[in-house]
């Protein structure tokens, strides 16, 4: 075309970003030695390699050294060797290294961007304007945290060697999200990039060599799932941080059960994009473009479920279609490309298959006209209309450019539809009415809510999910916490499971008493119809309690779920007064409870009384914190109010130990309640009478029915039912190691947040057993972004 023809056409022409420098780098590098271990570039000990391809052409880019188990061992060893010096280095020393990495990334920003686009297929605009700048920001932001660590987190220190496994959708950015906080906290890392996208991590390691990162602090091993497994199973790793699919996240949860490894999982999503009738519709359409057609929809927090208010649905869909027709699918290195290819043929097949299934289930799938480029794994942006909530496109994460659309009638239905999912990563709310948007945001089951925006990410603002979208946060204060552990922990004695012995004699009560289960505010008999005898310290018969079973747990969880709204929705001040009142009522009966403890456990009278007093004090302390679960206000580099709110986890199962049977129960119960959770408690299996006495106190203390439920019985059996229950959000277990391990493994069913003492006793008066520790576990952090301006 000559210039006059172009003048008439006014079309776009290819504007390719040069790949010359990237090609020079690729040609000059020996990828058979691309394992970065202890500061050295090593070949695979098994001399194995794997191929990485350009998704736009399918051509081979490089053959990368693939780590063997021995290489992972060497990497973990190098990280362990480097740990003491790095952990004990001054915050300033670590800050300077993080700063140097950030600046070095900045100096080579374009090479990183081009390489990322070649390896992943994402449009150069995105790698250049989003991925790389956010990665730079992450390192420079965390330099500050490194320096202020001891002031901001007194009594904490690096958790240890971290195994980090990252996905292929944002290779460099996810690397930054993993490595920056770990290094700031003083951890050393073994990181595995995704098999599809190994390149930018190699360039990153080269930069670290020059940025003064001590040898062994960052180790990068390449390869597929087997390498990931080797990291996850390695005994020298103290923490696993994983970003990827929920399916693999669940496997990691099972594999790490009983290992005492800290775990954070950032998994899949099916995030709602809610458009109310008073939204700026044209802007909401652009939000969708940034939400579901960003990175070809291969984004964990993609707004993949569009919920539109009925009154504007027709208009809005027309606008979306018009906009989709303007999206340009093509060569990702072309600066005019909006969508590049999907990362791999496997991913393309998966998306095609899900769209075919969705269509077969009744969805009307619409795509703009136009040919796709040949040779790459391209897929047209797709709008699925008439999607029923049961449709696979509404339920499953597609991880592709496919938008499922539904309508709602009112605010309540919008929230209900939004929360009708196993996932809970992100949500967008579009409305010009601030009171409506701020009404909806707290009600959404999601770790991140964007108001009149989407896919806003920043190093200062915590990111992460609830439900099967995983747990743990990345970014800011909360993200740093995930790489820290108490500095002074002395592990308690292993807990030995209680073995019931034949009980002597009979109770000497004036009138026979039947302690019951306490479910939904009522005393109920166990569904099993069985009871067990309880003995005192001299093995004399003191009473009989019901043997709770799975059905009792089922009923208790239902009751707790029903109460979650009233108790979790009550004001903190209201909860505080109820918990103060509980402490008040327990104090009235201090002698009775002390006598019971003394009689059952055989401790000295002073110790028994001290346990009751400590329990009252703990209730009092948690009551005082109920109205102080305050979030944070962040400072991202945009005109935005970004706040993180602390919300209750939801329904929490608590399995309390035999030791200090009253305090052990209350030390977990009180913080859970203070934060607004409802509880299903399994008290000490040996001395449950303290708990059955306690429900009489609870009954007089204005707690709403179902806020606390008590099921007596076998800790091992009941914790298994709790762990497998999909409507339990959190589970805290102080019991023997097998019970703890099994619960961690079983919890993978819905990825509930499990905390166990690792089968060891807890000192309730030390930091590890403190109210502060449990209050931190009792909340989820939700980040809410509110861009403003007029």
């Amino acid at each position: 075309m000559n210039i006059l023809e172009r003048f008439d056409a006014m079309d776009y022409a290819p504007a390719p970003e040069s790949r010359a420098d990237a090609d020079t780098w690729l040609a000059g590098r020996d990828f058979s030695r691309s394992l970065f271990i202890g500061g050295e570039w090593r070949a695979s000990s098994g001399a194995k390699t794997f191929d990485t391809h350009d998704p736009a052409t399918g051509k081979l880019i490089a053959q990368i050294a693939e780590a063997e188990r021995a290489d992972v061992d060497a990497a973990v060893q190098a990280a362990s060797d480097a740990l003491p010096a790095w952990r004990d280095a001054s915050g300033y020393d670590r800050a300077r290294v993080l700063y140097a990495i950030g600046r070095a990334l900045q100096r080579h920003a374009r090479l990183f961007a081009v390489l990322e686009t070649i390896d992943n297929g994402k449009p150069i605009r995105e790698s250049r304007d989003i991925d790389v700048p956010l990665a730079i920001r992450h390192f420079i932001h965390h330099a500050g945290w490194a320096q202020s660590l001891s002031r901001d987190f007194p009594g904490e220190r690096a958790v240890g060697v971290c195994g980090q496994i990252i996905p292929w959708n944002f290779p460099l950015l996810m690397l930054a999200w993993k490595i920056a906080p770990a290094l700031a906290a003083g951890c050393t890392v073994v990181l595995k990039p995704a098999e599809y996208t190994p390149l930018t991590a190699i360039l990153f390691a080269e930069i670290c060599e020059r940025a003064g990162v001590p040898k062994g602090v960052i180790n990068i091993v390449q390869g597929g799932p087997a390498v990931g497994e080797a990291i996850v199973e390695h005994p020298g790793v103290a923490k696993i941080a994983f970003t990827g699919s929920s399916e693999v996240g669940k496997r990691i949860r099972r594999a790490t059960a009983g290992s005492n490894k800290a775990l954070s999982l950032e998994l899949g999503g099916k995030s709602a994009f809610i458009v109310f009738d008073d939204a700026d519709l044209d802007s909401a359409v652009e939000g969708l473009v940034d939400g579901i057609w960003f990175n070809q929809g291969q984004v964990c927090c993609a707004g993949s479920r569009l919920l539109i208010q009925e009154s504007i649905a027709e208009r809005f869909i027309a606008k979306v279609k018009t906009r989709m027709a303007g999206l340009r699918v093509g060569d990702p290195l072309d600066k005019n490309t909006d969508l590049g290819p999907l990362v791999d043929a496997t991913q393309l097949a998966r998306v095609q298959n899900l769209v075919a299934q969705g269509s077969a289930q009744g969805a009307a799938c619409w795509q703009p006209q136009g040919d796709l480029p040949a040779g790459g794994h391209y897929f047209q942006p797709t709008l699925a209309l008439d999607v029923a909530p049961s449709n696979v496109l509404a339920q499953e994460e597609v991880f592709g450019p496919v938008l499922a659309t539904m309508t709602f009638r009112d605010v309540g239905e919008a929230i209900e539809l939004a929360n009708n999912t196993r996932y809970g990563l992100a949500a967008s709310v579009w409305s010009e009415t601030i009171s409506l948007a701020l009404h909806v945001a707290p009600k959404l089951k999601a770790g991140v809510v964007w108001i009149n925006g989407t896919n806003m990410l920043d190093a200062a603002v915590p990111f992460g999910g609830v439900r099967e979208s995983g747990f743990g946060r990345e970014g800011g204060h909360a993200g740093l916490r995930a790489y820290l552990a108490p500095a002074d922990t002395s592990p308690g004695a292993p807990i030995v499971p209680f073995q019931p012995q034949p009980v002597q004699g009979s109770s000497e009560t004036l009138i026979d008493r039947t302690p019951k289960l306490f479910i939904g505010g009522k005393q109920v008999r166990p569904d099993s119809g069985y009871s067990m005898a309880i003995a005192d310290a001299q093995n004399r018969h003191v009473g009989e309690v019901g043997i709770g079973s799975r059905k009792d747990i089922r009923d208790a969880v239902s009751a707790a779920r029903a109460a979650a709204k009233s108790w979790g929705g009550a004001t903190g001040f209201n909860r505080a007064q109820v918990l103060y009142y509980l402490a008040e009522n327990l104090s009235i009966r201090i002698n009775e409870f002390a006598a019971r403890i003394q009689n059952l456990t055989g401790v000295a009278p002073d110790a028994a009384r001290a346990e009751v007093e400590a329990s009252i004090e703990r209730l009092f302390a948690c009551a005082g914190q109920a109205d102080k679960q305050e979030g944070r206000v962040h400072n991202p580099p945009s005109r935005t109010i970004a706040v993180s709110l602390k919300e209750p986890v939801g329904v929490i199962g608590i399995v309390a130990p035999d030791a200090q049977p009253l305090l052990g129960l209350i030390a977990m119960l009180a913080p859970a309640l203070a934060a607004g959770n409802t509880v299903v408690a399994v008290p000490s299996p040996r001395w449950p009478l303290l708990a059955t006495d306690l429900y009489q106190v609870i009954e007089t203390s204005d707690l709403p029915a179902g806020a606390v439920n008590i099921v007596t019985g076998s800790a091992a059996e009941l914790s298994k039912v709790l762990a497998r229950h999909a409507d339990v959000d959190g589970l805290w277990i102080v019991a023997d190691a097998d019970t703890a391990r099994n619960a961690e493994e079983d919890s993978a069913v819905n990825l509930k947040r499990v905390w166990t003492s690792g089968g060891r006793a807890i000192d309730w008066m030390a930091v590890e057993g403190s109210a502060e520790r449990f209050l931190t576990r009792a909340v989820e952090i939700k980040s809410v972004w509110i861009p403003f301006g007029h």
Partner: protein
Amino acid sequence: MNTTGPESTPRSQPTAALHHLPTSRSVPANAPANPAEPEKSQRNPGLHFDPRFLDELRAVNLSAIERRAATLVKRRSIKGDNQSAWLLRALALMDLTTLNSNDTDERVRRLCAKALHPLSTELRDGLGLGDRLIRPAAVCVYHPFVATAAQALHGSGIEIAAVSTAFPHGLAPLETRVREIELSVADGATEIDVVIKRGLVFAGRWQELYDEVQAFRQACGSAHLKVILGTGDLVSLRNVTLASAVAMMAGADFIKTSTGKESVNATLPVGLAMVRAIRTYHGATGIRIGFKPAGGISTTKTALDWLVLIKEELGRRWLEPDLFRFGASSLLTDIERQLDHHVTGSYSATHRHALA
């Protein structure tokens, strides 16, 4: 621009069903690639004043619009031959303007000469333009120079635009403002750029604003009416959007951002809000309204950003002189320099290009 088409007064058209805006007639984004002969746009007959239309347009989110404006220009890249073609398009969409208090007849004649021969022979040959005339769409002047420009441009096809209605503030009696239009038209102006009284927007006196613009439109007769909102004064994008809607309802052929005299000139977010209002009006009525950003557009980079914005938001059809103009004075020189660079491969200097 067609200045001899049949006239219809604004009130002769029935009111469109505005509250439930039809969606089937939204702008096709993939409009014909080469509308060398675009279908003639019907002149805007206007609509009865309908406050419900304003309700539809109240939701304007500044942050989201700023994000779109910032990323929009990074989503598209115009390079090489294409860049030269697009810059020629920018030239052809230009209202070459002089609006200074020290303007003289001679100054205006010089501007008209530049409009008639905007590119040197070397550049024209280098770009392969052959016989094709690529010139600014109009010359834009104050009323006293309309006759001078009309004489200088006679027979060229270049329109004569006059700023009017007590430009730039609009704070004269309605009677004299209307009379000013009539006098400019009588002197040969084919396009009239009027200003609105910003105070009517702040007060929400939409009916009054509607009535004034309608009076301007009637005074224009066959001359086309561009309504300048003075967006830098209006402060909020909601004001900009609502004022755009009232101007379109009252019969504006074009809506225009700025006089060039406000402290804030044409910005992309303001432009985005205005073109979205145009899109909504087109969706409701099928009528295409023109858009003219003005003030501060002096570099080729900025000009390309605007062209991308129009192509992305309104489509190819709008990149024609009957629907899009730049109000500019020094932009032309920068275009010449850039074209020179494309032809010679070396960067040029301002003094090598003939003054306007």
